């Protein structure tokens, strides 16, 4: 040992990847859907069930199961869990579960609509901070526009009360919203209001391309289809043309673009995350609920699920001829939300092209100058020069992993 001039302890922020010089932990982050039930009934939501749905409640993971799950996650090296739903605060054991996660040394991200935040909960979160910003969904700046989305009278005021409690206790949070016909004119107002609440000028995160229901529900999915923005309008929000002329998006395509080929999962990474649904099934991500891609944790451990799932998914290949003809050869994978989870929600398969997302990707590419009007990306063989990429850096591109365009 030698005397150390520098500090023995070093602060690390949210990105821990530089820490792992050799092996990475088997699980870095786990999303846990504590319930599918929600006290709001948001029109566009891909998962909510009524708060009083006894059938759903009776099938949910019980307290002991979730505590054991948290213990298993910690043993695998998990440092962040996200409690989501439905509305996670509907569960009467929420505080118990929260403290279990924190006592196991995990940071907790809470995704909530804030309507059920109480002074008691805010006090607890203040004393035992989650160490992650809370994510709060807000869908309107007035009772009228909020009610049009949440269909829950009183939710607007309740959410404002909850957010005030969080702000009063200096609990950091970010607002998440969705651009819908009813609130599309309130985006700037929402951003200014959020900055006033949090003291930070960070813009709320807006989703613009709605997912259909992640469990088969033709009626609700039909409703969501009717709320979707026209592809060109959605593309307009996504390209960032108003922010930086689309530069960041073009760079993203240049760095990670390329065709998927026959590989279905281009988002897999080692030491990554995972998700558990409200009934104790491990999924690679929360929206991927195809029966072939879930692992029942009532029959095996989280360790087994985490070890078994990625190789199983990596082996899956697309078979749909239309997918192989289009998506398999399309260089816009970083602009396109097409993935097995979206295909599952739209078509009940893992490998069917989703027309809506394809149109949005092409509209973005046109706006960014990567495609001519009407041109199809899968017909462009030598796409590198269009994104300013040197030929040498394109060799072998195509089926490698990349980030999830949907975030």
């Amino acid at each position: 040992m030698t005397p150390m001039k520098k500090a023995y302890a070093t602060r690390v922020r949210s990105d821990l990847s530089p820490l792992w010089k050799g092996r990475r932990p088997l699980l870095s982050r786990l999303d846990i859907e504590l319930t599918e039930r929600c006290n709001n009934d948001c029109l566009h939501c891909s998962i909510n069930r009524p708060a009083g749905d006894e059938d759903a409640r009776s099938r949910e993971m019980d307290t002991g199961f979730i505590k054991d799950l948290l213990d298993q996650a910690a043993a695998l090296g998990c440092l962040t869990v996200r409690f989501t739903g439905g509305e996670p605060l509907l569960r009467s054991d929420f505080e118990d579960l929260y403290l279990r996660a924190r006592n196991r040394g995990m940071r907790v991200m809470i995704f909530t609509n804030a309507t059920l935040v109480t002074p008691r909960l805010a006090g607890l979160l203040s004393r035992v901070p989650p160490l992650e910003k809370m994510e709060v969904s807000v869908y309107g700046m007035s009772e009228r526009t909020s009610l049009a989305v949440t269909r829950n009278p009183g939710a607007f005021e309740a959410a404002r009360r909850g957010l005030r409690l969080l702000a009063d206790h200096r609990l950091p949070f970010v607002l998440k919203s969705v651009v819908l016909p009813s609130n599309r004119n309130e985006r700037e107002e929402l951003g200014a209001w959020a900055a006033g609440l949090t003291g930070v000028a960070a813009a709320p995160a807006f989703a613009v391309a709605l997912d259909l229901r992640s469990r088969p529900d033709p009626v609700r999915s039909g409703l969501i289809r009717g709320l979707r923005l026209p592809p060109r309008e959605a593309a307009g929000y996504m390209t960032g043309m108003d922010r930086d002329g689309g530069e960041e998006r073009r760079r993203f395509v240049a760095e990670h673009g390329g065709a998927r080929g026959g590989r279905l999962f281009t988002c897999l990474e080692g030491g990554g995350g995972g998700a558990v649904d409200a009934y104790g099934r491990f999924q690679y991500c929360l929206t991927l609920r195809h029966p072939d891609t879930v692992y029942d944790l009532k029959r095996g451990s989280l360790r087994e699920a985490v070890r078994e799932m990625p190789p199983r998914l990596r082996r899956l290949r697309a078979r749909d001829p239309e997918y192989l003809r289009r998506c398999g050869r399309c260089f816009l994978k970083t602009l396109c939300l097409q993935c097995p989870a979206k295909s599952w929600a739209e078509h009940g398969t893992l490998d069917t092209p989703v027309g809506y997302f394809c149109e949005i990707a092409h509209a973005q590419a046109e706006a960014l100058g990567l495609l001519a009007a009407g041109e199809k990306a899968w017909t462009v063989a030598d796409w590198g020069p269009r994104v300013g990429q040197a030929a040498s850096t394109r060799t072998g591109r195509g089926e490698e992993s990349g980030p999830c365009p949907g975030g």
Partner: protein
Amino acid sequence: MNDKIRLDSIYGPSGEIVAREIEGEIIIVPLTSGIGDMEDELYTLNETGRAIWRKLDGARSLREAAAELAAEFGAPIETVEQDVAGLVGELASRKMVVRIR
């Protein structure tokens, strides 16, 4: 040598943190508010810090810990005692370890 840290004292992890060992790294996770400088931050220890931390079990004195480490690493006892006092002083100032006796 850290003047405030006495080597005859026994120190152990504070109840206000959770220390985790993941893939060889020791990560100190604040549990309650007011630990560290920023509430969303975790802490890791360097190689020297990791070796010392593993000895801070609330049973050994710091002098005993230093003697064991000096033997294990074949390092001069004075140097190791400086490191032990330095780490404990740093962590105590962040409320990550507490003096037990």
